[in-house]
């Protein structure tokens, strides 16, 4: 139990996906302009990460390792993630049309989101069991959502600021992320 808690907190704060591992930067900068979009994107990524981690770690532990074909993990994981995203999209479309409209455009983008493939690869590199993988994926997803929401809050204000022309948009967003990452470094000794 203690071990699971450590994994969770490390994933949310200390080894934050975006700010210390640099994974999922495209949605981080692309979708962080509005708070509501950021929240939807965060939820969608967390959902896909969770499902993807459970299934890939099952495949890793029960198929790839016993048959000694771990080197196939890249090809298999990307196929699993791509098809999972399609299935999740279909299910949400059938069951909850409001959620589908909110997440709609972000779902296909998640296939090529490096944070999702990243967390599955981290799980197998650390030899996590299925339960540990689930917890680490949940932590990574929550950490991603947290940073996305903080960032979008800052950027909504930043739009009103009068910054130099060449700094507007992406460059100033990077500088904001630098300060944010600096703040998160303070958590380093925690776990």
């Amino acid at each position, binding site marked *: 139990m203690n071990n699971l808690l450590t994994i969770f907190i490390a994933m949310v704060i200390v080894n934050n996906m975006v*700010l*210390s*591992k*640099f*994974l*999922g*930067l*495209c949605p981080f*900068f*692309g979708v962080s302009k509005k708070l509501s979009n950021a929240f939807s994107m965060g939820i969608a990524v967390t959902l896909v990460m969770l499902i993807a981690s459970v299934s890939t770690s099952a495949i890793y532990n029960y198929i790839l390792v016993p048959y000694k074909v771990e*080197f*196939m*993990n*890249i*090809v298999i994981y*990307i*196929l699993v993630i*791509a098809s999972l995203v399609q299935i999740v999209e279909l299910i949400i479309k059938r069951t909850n049309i409001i959620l589908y409209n909110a997440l709609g455009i972000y779902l296909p983008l998640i*296939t*090529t*989101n*490096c944070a999702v*493939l*990243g967390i599955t*690869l*981290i799980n197998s*590199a650390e030899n996590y069991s299925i339960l540990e993988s689930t917890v680490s994926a949940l932590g990574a997803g929550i950490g991603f959502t947290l940073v996305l929401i903080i960032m979008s809050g800052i950027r909504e204000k930043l739009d009103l600021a009068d910054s*130099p*022309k*060449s*700094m507007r*948009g*992406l*460059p*100033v*967003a*990077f*500088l904001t*992320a*630098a*300060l944010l*990452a*600096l703040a998160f*470094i303070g958590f380093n000794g925690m776990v």
Partner: protein
Amino acid sequence: MDDYKNKSGCEINKGNSRRFWKELAKGVVISNPVFILTLGLCPVLAITSSITNALGMSAGVIFVLLCSNIMISSIRKATPLMVRIPVFIVVIATFVTIFSLLFEAYFPPLHKSLGIYLPLIVVNCIILGRAEVFASKNSVVLSAADALGIGFGFTIALIMISFLRETLGTGSVEIFGRQLFKLPGLSVHPLTFFISPPGAFLVIGILLALFRWIGVIRGE
């Protein structure tokens, strides 16, 4: 960001008549994947803390980009439009696996320090982007030129960033274990901030602003 993407996309679609070298030069300068198109930023930030890592990563991206562009361009007429994205992804993932195994065999320490960022080349938007925008519509030779140009552009960007970060962050520059130079004061009291994650965001933010600024001046 989107404007830049569209502009370069159109320019590229125009030309079957363009020559090999023109495609090559365009990837390096006009549509530099990192500074102008701002694609594939995850590895750029993560592995630019040393030049050696940057060179290893660039080798991976050039290899995968070249092989997948050639492969996708040669099967472009046989690929049904509906399933093209999964086909591209499988082709790219195969080449990434090949490169990862080769790298592990010949450069084990570098393979270890690149860690999960090497397999993550699969989801690098540069490679899927070139497959979709260029290789699926152009001949094999032009696609190879495009891959080399974009690959070199990526390499140059990575070397610039990692050179800045390694110089400021450690005070000396090493390539594959051989020391290139050492700055007297800075190597005693290095600004370690620059090799830490926030330093990566800061350096790239400033470089992006610099490239925009140059673009604004030239545009006017």
